[in-house]
């Protein structure tokens, strides 16, 4: 299959391209950018006039809910949501049921995902067995089975001795450890940021120091062990400062922020909007502004969707009892564009936050469109406005704080390995 994408505005941050250039695809790979290669007879031509052609998006956190949680979502539904959002590679945390702590489970997930021929799935293996926080998993075996790194998902790992050993063991093999920093005791029972809104609404709260204390521990252990660390979903201004200092010191640390934290604050909870029950909690406006700045100045490496499909029944409960999480795969691109637009950041720099940068964190080579690369491509209409409504989403999880909002930027085509896996009408 040979595809010619013509007339589009090609944005490839990794290769410093932002210009009208054609892309030529054959046998699943990019064969040329710009001039048509000799004897290239396209089987299909996509006219991308008025559209942006960019690398397929790489999402660092998307729960697919399989195995075990199919009532919330299925691989089929979420992979379709991924490609509808222009996401061609995604990382799934190990918080499935059972957790991804055995090579067989990982192999099965990889096999199932591959058979769907949509986005590429990169599982994170559990750091400890059953995410129980006591016994290490067979990390090397899990890596061989397809795990790209190791994480403890959102399950607190309170025992710092276990964390130390997990990092030491991971460092032995050069694996990266992905951690969401949160002190288990300070966050216990909490459902909202320890600030004005939780005080007003009488919600049990999680202070920012729950993040910074855990982050300080993680960074100290990283220094001790030499483990490569990726910090997931940073949420606080003080956390940003710690990451900035760690990077200046030269620690091998990267980090991401969830797209909703770049736009929302505790104020959006309003009067108990359960769609704003998220992990980590939406923090103060100052925290949100610090995250937006840190994304712009490179302290925060990447944006992720933090996609967590939740069934409607689980949200139709009082705020604290409602299940945390929001759907996000299809909102990653438009919300990234919105952040960039509001911050006065170039389209290219914005796209880097959801393609080249996450790809670099994963040590993959699929976040750009250089010749010889696998043809993972996202083609979107940057001018198209659309309203976020349950029926406009492919994900089985329809809950998001952005419901009802009008967003700009809609995916028209998604290609994975040279196949058009998603196509929408204009």
């Amino acid at each position, binding site marked *: 299959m040979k595809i010619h994408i013509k007339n589009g505005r090609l944005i490839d941050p990794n290769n410093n391209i932002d210009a009208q250039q054609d892309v030529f695809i054959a046998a699943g790979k990019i064969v040329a950018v710009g001039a048509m290669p000799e004897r290239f007879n396209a089987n299909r031509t996509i006219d991308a006039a008025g559209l942006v052609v960019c690398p397929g998006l790489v999402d660092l956190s998307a729960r697919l809910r399989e195995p075990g949680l199919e009532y919330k979502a299925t691989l089929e539904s979420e992979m379709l949501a991924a490609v509808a959002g222009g996401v061609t590679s995604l990382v799934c945390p190990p918080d499935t049921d059972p957790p991804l702590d055995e090579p067989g489970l990982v192999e099965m997930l990889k096999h199932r995902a591959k058979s769907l021929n949509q986005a590429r799935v990169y599982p994170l293996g559990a750091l400890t067995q059953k995410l129980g926080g006591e016994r290490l998993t067979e990390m090397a075996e899990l890596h061989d089975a397809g795990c790209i790194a190791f994480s403890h998902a959102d399950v607190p790992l309170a025992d710092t001795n276990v964390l130390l050993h997990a990092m030491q063991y991971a460092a032995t093999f050069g694996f990266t450890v992905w951690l969401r920093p949160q002190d288990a005791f300070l966050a216990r029972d909490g459902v909202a940021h320890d600030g004005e809104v939780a005080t007003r609404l009488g919600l049990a709260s999680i202070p920012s120091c729950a993040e910074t204390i855990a982050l300080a521990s993680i960074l100290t252990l990283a220094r001790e062990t030499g483990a490569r660390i990726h910090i997931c979903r940073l949420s606080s201004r003080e956390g940003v400062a710690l990451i900035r200092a760690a990077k200046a010191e030269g620690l091998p640390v990267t980090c991401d922020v969830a797209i909703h934290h770049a736009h929302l604050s505790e104020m959006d909870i*309003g009067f108990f909007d359960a769609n704003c029950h998220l992990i980590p909690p939406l923090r103060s406006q100052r925290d949100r502004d610090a995250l937006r700045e840190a994304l712009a100045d490179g302290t925060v490496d990447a944006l992720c969707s933090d996609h967590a499909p939740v069934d409607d029944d689980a949200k139709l409960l009082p705020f604290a009892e409602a299940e945390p999480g929001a759907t996000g795969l299809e909102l990653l691109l438009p919300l990234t564009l919105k952040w960039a637009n509001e911050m006065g950041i170039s389209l290219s720099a914005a796209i880097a936050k959801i393609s080249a940068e996450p790809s670099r964190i994963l040590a993959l080579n699929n976040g750009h469109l250089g010749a010889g690369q696998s043809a993972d491509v996202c083609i979107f209409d940057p001018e198209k406005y659309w309203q976020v409504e349950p029926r406009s989403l492919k994900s089985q999880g329809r809950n998001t704080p952005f419901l009802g909002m009008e967003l700009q930027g809609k995916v028209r085509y998604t290609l994975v390995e040279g196949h058009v896996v998603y196509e929408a009408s204009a």
Partner: protein
Amino acid sequence: MKNNPQLNRNGELQHLLTIEGLPAATLRHILDTASSFLNVAEREVKKVPLLQGKAIFNLFFEPSTRTRTTFEIAAKKLSADVINLNVGASSTSKGETLLDTVDNLAAMQADMFIVRHSQSGAPHLIARHVAPHIHVVNAGDGRHAHPTQGLLDMFTIRHYKQDLTSLRVAIVGDMLHSRVARSQIHALTTLGVPEVRVIAPKTLIPACAERMGVQIYHDMAKGLKDVDVIIMLRLQNERMRGALLPSAQEYFKYYGLTTEKLALARPDAIVMHPGPMNRGVEIESSVADGVQSVILSQVTFGIAVRMAVMSILMGSGAGSKQ
């Protein structure tokens, strides 16, 4: 801030979920209406026919005797049919969701739900869910709000002090877990009380409490100085987790209201408590039963205030407009 969900498009009270965001005129209207109901108890027939034929469901997901009873009495004085449901012990324990329970009761032609729930925001969830003709009154949700208690406290203060705009009010105790305190603070600041103090150890004061318009004190001697009203809060032992207080004895020594500490306030200061009281922990018996205590008046006024709220919500009060 999103729109206040308890006001309809005309700014009229559709539900009573929290004091927060209600205009002062609405609060005054409730208090004035309550005044007009005070004498019902003195009549030979202690009822008015305002809510005849209306069905009011007392939907209590959390145990309560005092509040449930006063709501029941208030509804009966308005001639409504009252159905008491101790839901914690029935439907939900069989796995039914909160909204399923509400749907079933709504199908039984309910006109109003009086809701108590252990989770903050549960009445908001119900109010968003029910048909427009059904009204919801929050009878206490988690740590969030207890608006009728807040209103009856305002009624009590107004009864004894008349002008609220020249008062110093001290709220003493566990603000962290107190829905009553939150409602009182919103009501006091909305009604123009110029100085509202909260006195407690740091472990019992939530983050950013001063953003609610209060001054924080940790020392009773300083906090009680020259105040006109002292509102004692109950220690919410059932909600406390972790190391918040070392002992009841130490708490009483530093934050319990004794005759000596009461003397720091203005001589005509009144002492209030939403009940039930822990004597010897929050308050000394001689103070609780003393001449400055208006604790039992609060209970009596509570019925008139709840009658006012119910009748206004149902459009049968002395004019349902603000």
